């Protein structure tokens, strides 16, 4: 087998890791060289991700197993894998693509020559570390390894949230977020310990074979700990309070990585529900927990966004509500899958929910990046003090509008396509849920129209030269996300068939294939 392809999963972690460790050294040589280096690392990571994804889909989307530190996954006569391994199925590769997109946009955005700020080297390093952690979470097939990557993302993310040290609010946000992240990480570790104590293994596929039907009480408690901890990190109401603090206080480019981080936690949640427990223990009540959390998330997220005066907190609450849509769709899919007679609308729900993840990363990312420029331009984050930015920043205005319309589900943009799938399949399970989702989406459009009206329309406030012209790299970064928004909007069928369906398939019926890939001893 092609050596580069064979090692691509680990290179995806190793390249940004090398970059993160090397950035402080390269930074000593000059800021231009450092920007070039970080950009190169991001491009290389994206290229590897693209190459891996292309060959993965070309090979029929069967799970890839990569064993770290040797070929021995299952020595003869053994039932438990002894080494850490990466395991990529359709869902992992799909999440990897989202992360690569967010990483490229974030690094491009931050590499502008607009103004060199103190600690820029450390910020680049932290962003690369966050990217490493997210990739690791999405690819690993080992629960303890998952915890380690979870902690890497927690620490890097919180350092980024507290990056603006001159501001007391950022420190407050960073402390709160770090405490909650650590707590969720410890709950996950406790669950890992409980499962290890029960079954003597750490590999997800191995544990999935051991958790037989009718899980023991300890298994259920471990599931509860994992579910709540990961849902907290994803930002589900009523555990979402950290999200607006973190998204609001983090620097512009870091916000989009925080969104990718939340989605990686959501991925972990899906992996636990569908693969680790899956058909072994999947009561209907579990689906309804997910749907309940999702409905709360949608409603509270969107209504709280309506009353925010801080532009970034407003977008952050919008982001929280979108997490609800993903959870709702996957909850509906889970309910349909675990019903006595599985009905195929569940598969459409899973497709819609997963498709919405990549759409949300692009739209929310676009909004956060545009908001970063708006805030620098206006010199304030308070919507009350803004106005008239559209007069000077034409492209930023267009990108913000595009992101807002797409997120609110205006046809023919990408948000409409995924939300349509979510509404239709949810309607089959329960019309009331679908109506709530549609009403919340309309309210979301109102939220962003308000933000748009307050920040961009109206007469010029006080003309300054700040951010005029907007640095090219920032425009390119936003243009990349805008391209995704438009392309996914105009050709949804193309992307759903190629990348979303294998991911949904991995959740819907891929559990056995995932387990087989490791337990048949083929790894390595």
């Amino acid at each position: 087998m092609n050596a580069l392809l064979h090692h691509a999963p680990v290179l995806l972690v190793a390249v940004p890791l090398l970059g993160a460790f090397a950035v402080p050294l390269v930074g000593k040589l000059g800021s231009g060289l450092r920007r070039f280096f970080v950009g190169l690392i991001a491009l290389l990571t994206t290229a590897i991700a693209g190459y891996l994804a292309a060959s993965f889909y070309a090979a029929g989307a069967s799970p890839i197993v990569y064993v770290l530190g040797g070929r021995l996954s299952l020595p003869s006569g053994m039932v438990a894998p002894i080494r850490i391994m990466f395991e990529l199925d359709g869902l992992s590769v799909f999440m990897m693509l989202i992360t690569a997109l967010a990483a490229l946009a974030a690094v491009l955005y931050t590499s502008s020559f607009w103004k060199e700020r103190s600690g820029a080297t450390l910020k680049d390093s932290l962003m690369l570390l966050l990217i490493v952690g997210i990739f690791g979470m999405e690819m690993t097939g080992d629960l303890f390894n998952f915890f380690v990557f979870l902690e890497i993302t927690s620490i890097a993310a919180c350092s980024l949230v507290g990056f603006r040290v001159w501001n007391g609010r950022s420190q407050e946000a960073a402390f709160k977020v770090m405490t909650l992240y650590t707590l969720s990480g410890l709950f996950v570790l406790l669950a890992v310990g409980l499962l290890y104590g029960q079954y003597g293994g750490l590999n997800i596929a191995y544990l999935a074979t051991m958790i037989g039907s009718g899980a023991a009480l300890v298994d259920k408690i471990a599931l509860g700990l994992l579910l709540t901890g990961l849902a907290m990190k994803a930002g589900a109401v009523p555990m979402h309070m950290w999200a607006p603090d973190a998204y609001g206080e983090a620097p512009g480019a870091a916000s989009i990585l925080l969104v990718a981080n939340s989605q990686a936690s959501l991925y972990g949640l899906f992996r636990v529900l569908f693969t680790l427990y899956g058909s072994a223990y999947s009561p209907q009540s579990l689906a309804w927990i997910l749907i309940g959390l999702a409905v709360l998330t949608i409603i509270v997220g969107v209504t709280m966004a309506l009353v925010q005066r801080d532009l970034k907190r407003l977008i952050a609450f919008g982001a929280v509500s979108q997490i609800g849509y993903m959870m709702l769709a996957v909850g509906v899919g889970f309910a349909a899958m675990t019903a006595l007679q599985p009905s195929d609308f569940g598969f459409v729900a899973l497709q819609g929910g997963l498709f919405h993840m990549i759409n949300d990363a692009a739209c929310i990312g676009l909004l956060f990046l545009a908001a970063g420029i708006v805030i620098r331009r206006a010199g304030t984050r308070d919507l009350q003090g803004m106005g008239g930015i559209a007069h000077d920043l034409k492209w930023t205005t267009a990108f913000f509008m595009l992101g807002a319309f797409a997120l609110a589900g205006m046809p023919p943009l990408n948000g409409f396509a995924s939300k349509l799938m979510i509404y239709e399949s949810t309607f089959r399970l329960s019309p009331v849920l679908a109506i709530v989702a549609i009403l919340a989406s309309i309210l979301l459009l109102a939220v962003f129209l308000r933000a748009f009206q307050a920040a961009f329309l109206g007469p010029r406030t006080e003309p300054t030269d700040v951010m005029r012209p907007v640095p090219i790299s920032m425009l390119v970064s936003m243009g990349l996300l805008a391209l995704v928004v438009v392309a996914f909007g105009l050709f949804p069928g193309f992307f759903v068939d190629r990348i979303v369906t294998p991911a949904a398939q991995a959740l819907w019926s891929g559990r056995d294939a995932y387990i087989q890939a490791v337990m048949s001893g083929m790894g390595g």
Partner: protein
Amino acid sequence: MTLGQVPFVVSALLVVIGLYALLFKRNLIKMVIGVSIIETGVNLFLVTVGYRAGGQAPIYTYSDPTTLRVLPTPQALTLTSIVIGLATTALLLSFVVFIHRHYQTLDAEKIKELKG
């Protein structure tokens, strides 16, 4: 409940004590201590999970190679998790330093600029 489960219960109680500090203490340093106690409880739990009755430490130097040994993996996991705990605690405490610099207080009730 049998008496043999006491080590598990003790580590669970450590987690509970840490949660108590997080929920009912108002001093930020005490909350960080609470997080550390939870960490300790989880680490202790990991180590106790790997105990085999009558087992020795899994080191072969100068010992009979045939004796029963405790499971090595949980100890390795605990080592990793201790270092991670150290890193998080260091970061949390430096945030506390900066919060004190800006707010001139460590009372959690007074540090709520971010709300609503």
